[in-house]
C-alpha cells in the first residue's frame, strides 16, 4: 500500500497579477519503507511537493492521499491531527524549539499527542536519542549544539512518534558536506532498521546517491519518476 500518493497535483500562486505554477500536474506514489530523494534545482517545485506530502499545503488541483485518505476536504484541525500522528518533518534550518533542551525538543511531539504515559514517553525519547547518538547532550539547549548535532536532534524528534513518513526538506543544506553525508547515512540506517519511510529533497548529487530512489523534478513537472526504484 502506498503511504503517500499524488495524483495530477497542480499548485499555482498569484504573485500580484502574475500566476506562478509551482507544480504543473504531478503524479507520484511512495510506498512503505522507501528512502526517496526528490531532486531538482532551486525553484523546481520540490519543496512544494514535500509540502503536499506533509499536509502543510493544499493543491490547487489534483488529489493527495495520505495512508489511503484524501486530504482535500480535511479541516485544519484534521490536517493537524494527521501531521501529529502520521507525518514528521526534518527542516533545512533544524527548527528546534529554542527554549527547550535536547530531551524536551524530542519529547515535544509526544506531549502534543497526549497518548503515552510519562514512562513510555521517556523510553521512546531515550531510544530516539540513542539512535542519533546524542545521549550525552540531553540537557543541552539547541544553541549549545553544532549544526550536525541539531539536525540529529531534529531526526530524533521526527522519529519519536513512529510516523508513517518522514519528510526532510534539504536536510543537509545548512551542513558541511561531511556532516551532511553522515546525516543522510543516519537517516538511511534508520530507514533500513526501522523501515521508516523517508522522503527528502536535495539538489546535491552526492546526497542523491544515498537515495534508493530519486525523483527528478523540473519546472513543476516530474521528469524521471522511477529512477533507481527498487523492486
Amino acid at each position, binding site marked *: 500500500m502506498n503511504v503517500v500518493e499524488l495524483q495530477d497535483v497542480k499548485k499555482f500562486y498569484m504573485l500580484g497579477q502574475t500566476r506562478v505554477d509551482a507544480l504543473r500536474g504531478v503524479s507520484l506514489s511512495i510506498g512503505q519503507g522507501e528512502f526517496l530523494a526528490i531532486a531538482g534545482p532551486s525553484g523546481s517545485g520540490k519543496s512544494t511537493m514535500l509540502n503536499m506530502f506533509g499536509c502543510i499545503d493544499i493543491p490547487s488541483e489534483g488529489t493527495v492521499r495520505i495512508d489511503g485518505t484524501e486530504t482535500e476536504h480535511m479541516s485544519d484541525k484534521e490536517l*493537524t491531527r494527521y501531521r*501529529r500522528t502520521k507525518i514528521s518533518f526534518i527542516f533545512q534550518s533544524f527548527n528546534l524549539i529554542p527554549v*527547550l533542551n535536547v530531551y*524536551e525538543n524530542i519529547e515535544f511531539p509526544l506531549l502534543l499527542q497526549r497518548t503515552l504515559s510519562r514512562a513510555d514517553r521517556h523510553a521512546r525519547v531515550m531510544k530516539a536519542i540513542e539512535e542519533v547518538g546524542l545521549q550525552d547532550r540531553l540537557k543541552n539547549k539547541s544553541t549549545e549544539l553544532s549544526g550536525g548535532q541539531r539536525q540529529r536532534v531534529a531526526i530524533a524528534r521526527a522519529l519519536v512518534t513512529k510516523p508513517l513518513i518522514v519528510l526532510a526538506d534539504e536536510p543537509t543544506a545548512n551542513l558541511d558536506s561531511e556532516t551532511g553525508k553522515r546525516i543522510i547515512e543516519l537517516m538511511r540506517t534508520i530507514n533500513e532498521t526501522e523501515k521508516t519511510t523517508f522522503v527528502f529533497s536535495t539538489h546535491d548529487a552526492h546526497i542523491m546517491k544515498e537515495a534508493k530512489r530519486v525523483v527528478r523534478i523540473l519546472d513543476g513537472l516530474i521528469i524521471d519518476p522511477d529512477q533507481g526504484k527498487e523492486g
Partner: protein
Amino acid sequence: MLTLKLAFRTLMKRKGRMALIGILVAFGTFLIVFGGVFAASAAEASRASIIGNFTGDFIVYSARSKELPSPFAFATPLPNIKNPEELSAVLDAMDGVEAYSFYAQNYGLIQVEREGKKLDLPFIFYAVDPGPYRKVFSNVQVEEGSFFGLPPKNGTEGKELPSPGILISKYQNNQYKENYGVTLKVGEPITLLGITEGGVNTARSSLLGIFEPIRYKSVFNYINFLDSDTYAGLYNFTGVDALPDAFNAGLAAASVDESSLFDLAADEDFGKLDLSTLTSQSLSGFTMVAVKLKDHSRVDEAMALISAQPELGVAVARWDKASGFYAQISLALQAFIFLATGLIFLVVTMIFMNTLIINVVERTAEIGTMRAIGADKSFVRGVFLAETLILNITAAIFAMLVSVVLLALAGKNGVPLPETVSQFLIGGGPLAIRVGILPFIVALVTVVAVSVLATIYPVSVASSITPLKAMNDR
C-alpha cells in the same frame, strides 16, 4: 504544563523586553491600587467630613423649597419648616436617629461702638440650637470663651442650658480688624441688626466665644453662630399660639369677596381682640434639620420614613445632595482617577500588544514548526496567553506588594495633600488611608482583562501562521 513551560522559558529568554512590559504593567497596577485606595479613602473621608460638618446623614427641609439645602444658601435662605414640634416628635420616635439639630442660615450685622462711633460689621451665621447642634456636628474648636456657655463637649453636657449670644470665627475677627479696625472680645456686648422685609430689627447680645474651624476652614472661617432664640426675635419669628375661633371664622368669611371684607371691617366687635388672652409664641425660623443616624447605612430607610409622612410638609435630602458641590468633588476625583488609570492602561495595552506582535513575527519559524509537528492553533494561543498572564500577573502581584508596603507607611500619618485640594476634598488635613480589598481585586481583574484583550490580536496573528512558514524559513 507544556504550555506553561514554554511560556515561562520564553519569558526568561526575552527577559529584557519582558521586564519593560512588566514594569509598565506593574506601574499600571500600582496606579489602580493606589488610585483606588486614594479615591475610596477620599470618598470616605469626604463623606465623614460632610456629614460631621454640614449635613448630618441627611437634611430635612421645607417641602415648599424649590432649592436643595446647601451649606452656602445664605443669600437665598430656604423656607421655614412649618411644624418643627411635629417633626421633632417624629424624629424622637425613630429608633435609628442618634441626634438631630434644627438650624438656619442667614446674615445680618454686628454693631459695635468704638471711640463713640458705631460700626456695622457683616455677620454671616448659622442660627442653631446649641445643645443639639453640638450633638450632630463637631466642626468647631472653641479657642476663647465657650460654645454658648455649654461645658466642653466631653464634659457634663446637657446639664446646663446654653446662653444666648454669638460665636465668631478667629478668621472673622481678624477680618474685622483688618477691614474695620475692630477686634471683638469674648464677653463684649454687641448689637445685632437683622434685615427683614419690614425693616431692620435689633437685638442686644454678646460675644460668647471665638472658634477655629476643625475642617472646611474655607467655609467655616466665614460662618459664625447665633443662638436660635435670639435669631427668632431678631427676624420677627414670633407669633401667637392661636387666634380666637370667631376671629378666624370672620377672616375666612371675608376672604370670599370684596364686599364681605368691607362688611368685616365695619363690624366693630370683630376688631376688639383681647390681647391678654393671646399667648405669645416664639417661632423657630428654622429652615433645616440635620439628622445624625446611629447607623449611616440606614440613611435611605430613615429618609423614606420621613418622606412617607407628607403631612409634615417636609422634604429630605441625603448628605451628598445637601452638600452643595463638595460631594461632587469627591466623585469627580474618583472619575478622574479611573479615567487617568484607564488611559494609562490603554497605552500599556497598546505597547504590550505591539511587543507581542513583534514577538510573534520574530517567532514565526518557531510557531510554524510547532504547527508542522502537530500543535493545534489552540495550543499556540495557549502559549501566548500563558506568557502574557504569567508576566502580567507576576508584575501585578509585585506592584500590589509594593502598594501594600507604601500604603501601610502612608496609613500611619495619612497622606499629606496640598491645602487647597485637602480643603475641598476632605475639609483639610492629611487624608487618612483606608485600605480595602476592592482596589486589589479591581487591579487584578483589570490586569487579567487587559492581558487577554492585548493578546487577542497578536494571538490571532500567531495562530494564523501556517506550518508552511517553518518550511519556508531559511
